[in-house]
Structure formats: C-alpha cells, structure tokens
C-alpha cells in the first residue's frame, strides 16, 4: 500500500517536471516558479525519503535476507522438522513473525539497534556484491541473551522452568549464554540430511 502511495507521488512529480520541460515559459510567472520549486525539489525529496524508508523496511523481511544465495541454507534450516532446533521451532510455531524471521532474532534490542542492524546490512551488501562472502558464515560477535530475553523475559514458560529459575541472574547478566544449553541453531553443515517440515513457503 505504501509502495503505491510513493509510486503515485513519484508519478505526480514526473508529470509536473515533464509539464515544465514542455512549457518552460511557465516558470516566468510567480505561480510557475513555485510550481517548479515543488516539482524540482519538494516532491523529489519527499518521494526519495519515503522510497528509502520503504526499502529499509523491506530489508527487514525474511524474503529479503534469503534472496542472497549465501543465506539459502539458513533459510532452509527454518524448516528442520525437529523442535529442539531453536530457529526452526520459533519459525514453525509463530513465536516470531514468519515474514520478519531473521530480523526479529538478529537485530539488537537497544536504542540504536535498528541503525546497527542496517549498518551490518550495508556491510553484507558490500561483501555480497564487491567482495567474496566467507565459506562459513559467522556472527560478528557472540549472540547476546538480551535478544532472547526481549521476548522470553517475564514469560511463564521461561520464568517457571527449573533451569531458568536457578540461573536467572547469570542469564540476565549474559554471564551464561542461552546457547550453552540451547545448542541446536541453524546447523547449515548438515542441512541436506535433515528431515524438513512441509509447511507453507515464504
């Protein structure tokens, strides 16, 4: 919907610019000068800003992340038919929105988390188009419990489970990683051999 609004704005801007291109004499009068300013400056600024915002929003979609060839095995790992695999269990049981699956877990839940995520995304684009992606993908830094606790903290299923109760302080302070126990993550090395869930595609 937002796409159509921006495309309509762009079309309006193009029409006005084309009109002034065809009838440059219009800019000789006061109203024409204002029209030219709107067509040549105001509308393009708004259209470009809104367009950039839509692209940034699109870049948080699962489809966007998995459109890069190097991410396809990670995408396939969301369909592993085994509830002990953390990303697969979250994806298949709607614990995270399917259309924003990667972003929901891999953004930073901090004040500038979105900005950091976009910066990493730009770095990924650079590596994908202008350099060589590494054979084995890895996170820039260890996965923080903060990202898990953003949803799980305060949830009954987390708070009332015995190991969580005993280690709550260590988990909250990130002294012990959630991944110490929840070890089954994407496991792309063995993805071909694993049984897959035949759920709805993305």
């Amino acid at each position, binding site marked *: 919907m937002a796409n159509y609004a921006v495309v309509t704005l*762009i079309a309006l801007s193009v029409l006005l610019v*084309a009109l002034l291109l065809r009838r440059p004499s219009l800019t000789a009068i006061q109203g024409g000068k204002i029209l030219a300013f709107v067509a*040549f400056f105001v509308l*393009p*600024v708004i259209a470009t800003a809104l*367009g*950039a915002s839509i692209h940034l929003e699109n870049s948080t979609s699962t489809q966007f992340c998995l459109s890069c060839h190097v991410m396809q095995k990670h995408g396939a790992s969301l369909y592993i038919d085994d509830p002990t695999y953390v990303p697969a269990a979250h994806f298949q049981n709607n614990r995270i929105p399917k259309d924003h699956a990667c972003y929901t877990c891999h953004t930073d839940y901090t004040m500038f988390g979105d900005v950091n995520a976009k910066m990493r995304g730009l770095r990924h684009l650079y590596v994908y188009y202008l350099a060589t992606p590494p054979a084995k993908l890895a996170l820039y830094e260890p996965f923080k419990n903060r990202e898990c606790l953003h949803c799980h903290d305060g949830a009954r299923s987390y708070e009332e489970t015995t190991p969580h109760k005993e280690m709550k302080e260590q988990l909250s302070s990130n002294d012990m990683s959630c991944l110490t126990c929840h070890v089954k993550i994407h496991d792309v090395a063995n993805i071909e051999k694993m049984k897959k869930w035949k759920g709805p595609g993305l």
Partner: protein
Amino acid sequence: MSDSRSRTERELRTAAYLLILGLAIEAITLQWAHPTSFVVFLTIGAVLVLAGMAVYLFAIVRH
C-alpha cells in the same frame, strides 16, 4: 540577457531529465524487496534525483 535565459533553460532541462530518469528508476526498484533493487535505488535512482535537484538549485540561484 537572452544568453543567460537560454543557459538557465538548458540547465532546467538537464535537471528535468535527471529527475525524470532518477524518479523512474526509484519507482521501478520499489516493486521488489531485493538487495539489488535497494542498491540500484540508492546508487543510481537517488544519485540522479540529487543531481537533478542540485542542477535546478544551481540554475535558480545563479539566475
């Protein structure tokens, strides 16, 4: 005087072509949620639009 006017008109025409091309590219890239369309939007569409606006502003300030 007429030389100056024709130069301004020429610059406005250049600005118009840059803007139309840039905005058209921006509109096309919005049809896909793909890294390539994002890169094309940023490095071609937005750059052409900025160049068009710069030429327009330069033309009206100089005029």
